[in-house]
């Protein structure tokens, strides 16, 4: 499955090369022209005629990068100290396998064994400063044959399915699910074309989308994302944010954007018309590329649609396949509707 293939690729913010090559390969197979800027964003035109007045009006985007780690230094013992890249959840780091650098050198994240810890120590969360990656090197010199400071590392998690294939798991569903959706849309024919952008460096401050929006200069933008689902044990329903399996989530506001009312209305209208389930994201925190896109140049009417996803920013997150499929169809209907009626 495309989401799973994408999720397995390493692509920590600033090091999206392998994801980029994969997506470019897909685009080439589809016969879709595209280009890449100096930061690494991919720009593609969907199928469909260039229609006067709507072009380059509409932009759809999904970020390619994932949170991960960066090697900070190699200790004398050959252990690797690391920095987080983006908001990695520190609870989820210890005892995970990782892949480091272009060569995907395997390593594991270790910590002091429980036997060696005092009772008090065990109660405290492990901080990133207490953790290190072990690649089995004998010493610094040995380690540096394989790894250098500055190398990126990502979780070594293979995507899988649960619950008879309904649930997809993986390390980088955020936001390869969005990338997969955008690729799916690009396979289709539209009455007029739109610009698709696969952005870089979302997780370190929405940086790729900023320059992408400036370049594309759209009037309307829809961001395809994944968002947190907290429908979990011992969480009150009011704090769920989103619920897995209840359809894609529409953002009313997040920490970076107020979805433009016309965009939100049109998304709702599309979902209702096509009888697709949807939910509102009941949480206004965190940032998306829509934040910088909406403020680009003279302002852009922007919105966000997301696949709800549990355990974001950890080694293994999960989403419901049907939520993703509904997202694709609502986004598809939105594109057609904007082409047909505009967005005034």
């Amino acid at each position, binding site marked *: 499955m495309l989401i799973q293939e994408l999720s397995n690729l390493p692509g920590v913010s600033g090091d999206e090369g392998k994801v980029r090559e994969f997506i470019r390969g897909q685009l080439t197979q589809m016969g879709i022209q595209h280009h890449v*800027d100096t930061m690494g964003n991919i720009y593609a035109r969907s199928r469909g005629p260039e229609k006067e007045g709507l072009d380059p009006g509409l932009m759809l985007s999904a970020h390619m990068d994932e949170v991960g780690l960066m090697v900070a230094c190699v200790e004398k013992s050959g252990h690797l100290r690391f920095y987080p890249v983006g908001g990695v959840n520190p609870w989820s780091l210890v005892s995970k396998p990782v892949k480091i650098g272009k060569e995907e050198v395997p390593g594991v994240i270790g910590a002091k064994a429980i036997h060696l810890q005092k009772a008090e120590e065990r109660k405290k969360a492990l901080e990133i400063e207490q953790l290190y990656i072990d690649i089995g090197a004998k010493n610094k010199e040995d380690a540096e044959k394989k790894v250098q400071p500055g190398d990126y590392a990502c979780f070594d998690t293979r995507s899988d399915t649960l619950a008879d294939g309904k649930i997809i798991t993986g390390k980088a569903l955020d936001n390869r699910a969005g990338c997969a959706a955008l690729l799916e849309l690009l396979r289709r024919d539209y009455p007029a074309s739109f610009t698709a952008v696969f952005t870089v460096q979302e997780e370190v401050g929405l940086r790729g989308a900023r320059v992408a929006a400036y370049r594309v200069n759209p009037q309307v933008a829809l961001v395809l994302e994944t968002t947190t689902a907290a429908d979990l044990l011992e969480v009150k329903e009011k704090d769920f944010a989103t619920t897995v399996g209840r359809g894609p989530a529409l953002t009313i506001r997040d920490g970076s954007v107020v979805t433009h009312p016309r965009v939100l209305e049109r998304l709702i209208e599309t979902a209702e018309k096509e009888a697709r389930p949807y939910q509102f994201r009941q949480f206004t925190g965190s940032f998306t590329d829509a934040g910088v896109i909406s403020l680009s140049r003279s302002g852009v009417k922007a919105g966000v649609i997301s696949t709800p996803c549990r355990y974001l920013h950890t080694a293994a997150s999960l989403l419901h396949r049907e939520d993703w499929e509904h997202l694709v169809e609502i986004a598809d209907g939105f594109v057609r509707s904007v082409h047909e009626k505009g967005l005034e």
Partner: protein
Amino acid sequence: MELRVLLQEISQRDGVSGFEQLLASYLSQQFEVFVDETRTDHLGNLIMLKKGSKGFPRVILCAHMDEIGLMVTKVEKGGFLRFTSLGGFDVRTLPGQVVTLYGTRKVKGIIGFTAPHLQTDTEKKKSAEMDQLFIDTGFPEEQVKELIPVGSVAALQRSVVELMNQSCAGKAMDDRAGIAVLWQCATELQKLTHEADVYFVATVQEEVGVRGAVVSTYGLTPDLGVAVDVCHGNIPGAQEHQVSELGKGPVITSGPNIHPVITRKLTTIAKDYRLPFQKDVSPGPTGTDARAIQVSMEGVPVGLLSIPLRYMHTSVELLDLDDVKQGGRLLAYFVSSLDKNLVEELSC
């Protein structure tokens, strides 16, 4: 002029964030012999162009000329001045510091605080808070109101102290060291050829949020850039990967904020010319002008070169002069190497 003298001169001159004009005019005099055009933009960024043989590519070399400082918020009874900061201070370094106030004329003052015999033992153990401190000019209240109205800025006062092994300490080395690197680079370029148009940009307001670089980069639409700033030097207690060593050359940074081709090029050039250098990694946007440059307009590939410096944001910022010199040379050889091929490589 010698590099040592230039750095001393510019360290001792004042240019608090947002109030860099006097320093800018001094700098433009010092660069005058090297450059073809000089201008200042709306925010006060000093932009100096040295033309290349082909006028392509266009490269910007940025160092911020502003320094952290203070601003008067209120004149209290007795003529004591309340203040806020422009940029990030460790408040503990302020008590007893002499400052230069820029009111209707230049006035000296001392940062005062409650007399020790009035403090309880618990109070003494706590760090000072900025609103417990004040500036004392010795003038009576009425005269203070005349001389130093609300909104006046103050700079830390410190003469450069020369120390062992080419090292020296002073205020505002962050980032006058970077300016000195640009100056050394301009000096070296006199002896070299270069195709690229080189813009030396002394940016303003970096310490309050890299504001100068936001607008200066927009105006110039360069093909690439290098930011020159300072980074933390080794001190006892710091972890190895957080610091770089003094005297072992400038530091080349890599990470998502930095274009990998520029990092590679700087490294190759340093090796080819046998110039000392160190490496550093940064996992997110750096706290330098590079942060703004990278995401300007359609994106500008940027590199970062840093001078190791101890005691950042105090009045005794300490560095090794040789690092500054080597940084200038490295940057000059880098500029000299720029051509069309490199710009093509910058596209992913």
